[in-house]
């Protein structure tokens, strides 16, 4: 045996890498869930927008984002590769369906994972691609001082003045008075023509409120979270097993932690669209 064999990635090394990237994603999921809870703050979006601004501009976050994206791609890629390698290991299938008691989450991991990938694309379309400016969003925000300073001398068109006046009238100014929020795409484009240097950011607080007041989008997201739950129910425990951290002493503890983690993440995610939806119904 030499190093060549190890470079070829044994079945265990493939699993180890898959679990490693999966673990990053597990940690990220918890972070994402906690961040989402800012949407529930009853401050018109101050906290969440500040958070989004930080996440959109901080250098370290940008690096972390790249790492995370890499984890996503590698996790999905490796899972696909493992699936591909496992194909054909049983050329003739059994006539009778298996009646062996197995961990269902693990058995369905590939299906739940594939489903997640599809749902993730829709989720990215709603939010992440808007952030990357690949897809046009419905709501934008901009720092007011930035765009006033960026074009102090030039005459501002009447259209832009109307947009700004209207935004102030509709109380679309953040509580610190520094940014305009909830600008529609048209308003944003008008302002952008007049203030080319101003940096517009997607307003995810209002985007989320917009999306989550439609019942079928809320339902889709709840299904999404359910599938996430199913997948991490497998992932959490499996990661420990793959890292060789399954031991008679604490395997029960890991199981319980996995269930708790799964529920916390799923409920944490689900509470945001549900609350926003119920609020919109009352309003």
């Amino acid at each position, binding site marked *: *045996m030499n190093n060549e064999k190890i470079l070829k990635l*044994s079945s*265990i090394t*493939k699993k180890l890498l898959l679990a490693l990237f999966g673990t990053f994603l597990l940690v990220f999921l918890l972070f994402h869930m906690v961040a989402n809870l800012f949407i529930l703050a009853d401050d018109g979006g101050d906290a969440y927008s500040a958070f989004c601004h930080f996440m959109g501009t901080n250098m370290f976050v940008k690096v972390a984002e790249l790492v995370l994206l890499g984890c996503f791609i590698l996790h999905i890629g490796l899972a696909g590769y493992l699936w591909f390698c*496992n194909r054909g290991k049983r050329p003739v299938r059994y006539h009778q369906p298996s*009646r062996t008691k197995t961990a269902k989450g693990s058995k369905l991991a590939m299906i739940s994972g594939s489903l997640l990938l599809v749902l993730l694309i829709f989720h990215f379309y709603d939010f992440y691609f808007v952030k990357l400016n690949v897809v046009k969003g419905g709501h934008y925000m901009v720092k007011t001082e930035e765009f006033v300073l960026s074009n102090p001398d030039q005459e501002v068109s009447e259209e832009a003045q109307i947009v700004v006046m209207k935004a102030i009238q509709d109380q679309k100014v953040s509580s610190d008075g520094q940014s305009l929020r909830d600008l529609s795409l048209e308003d944003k484009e008008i302002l952008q023509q007049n203030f080319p240097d101003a940096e517009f950011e997607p307003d995810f607080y209002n985007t989320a409120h917009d999306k989550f007041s439609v019942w079928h989008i809320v339902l889709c997201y709840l299904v999404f979270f359910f599938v996430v739950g199913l997948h991490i129910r497998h992932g959490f425990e499996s990661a420990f097993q*793959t890292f060789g951290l399954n031991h008679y002493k604490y395997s029960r503890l890991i199981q319980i932690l996995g269930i708790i983690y799964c529920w916390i993440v799923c409920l944490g995610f689900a509470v945001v669209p549900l609350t926003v939806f119920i609020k919109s119904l009352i309003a």
Partner: protein
Amino acid sequence: MNFTLHIWRQENATAEGHFETYKVSDISPDCSFLEMLDILNEQLINDKIAHPVCFDNDCREGICGMCGLYINGRPHGNDDGITTCQLHMRKFHDGDEIWIEPWRAKAFPIIRDLVVDRSAFDKIIQAGGYISVTTGGVPDANTIPVPKRFADMAMDAAECIGCGACVAACKNASAMLFVGAKVAHLAMLPQGHVEAQERVKKMVCRMDELGFGSCTNTYACEAECPKQIKRQNIARMNREWIKQLFAGNHKPAE
């Protein structure tokens, strides 16, 4: 008891197989599954109906690991912790239809009917499932420096009889439980511990070469193992693998 049997018949490794239906009657509920097949074979020979059904068996008391049939969707039939020879007809209902299939895996090619070639397991053992350091003469049992619980865990893992039910049950036809048990029981004892890293490297690489799939943690193997080998052995193998990935700095053998 009367049964309708659907049995996989296949002339040889290359021939195309198919299910053949047979009926057996007046089977005692105390009859073992293999004895029931013996009765069927006697019937087939006496009545000159067909070539008797080939199946592997030897000790018929659950310790040799020769028998192994996929019965109604479960390796070794619908009971836990037993081999096929320990399955009794009282576990079935009178008039049941029973589907009998061989182990299905790329690494276990069919020889004839229900007999599969499990020499892939032997090849994995040959790759590293042994101790090559000299350990001297047979020591008194109480002079070996091994804690009781380690000895117990090693013994539990060493119970593996290599029947192949883990591979048969796994949706990826993976042999991780078998290799895990072999790696674990040697790694836990002082005589085997010194070569543990080299061993896991050799055995896992050989397992991959032989066409077994990789593990996706469904634990079907653990559920079907007649010796109830635990998944913790797979974790121990993973642990040994990680150790050899990072710490395996032995001088290569000359």
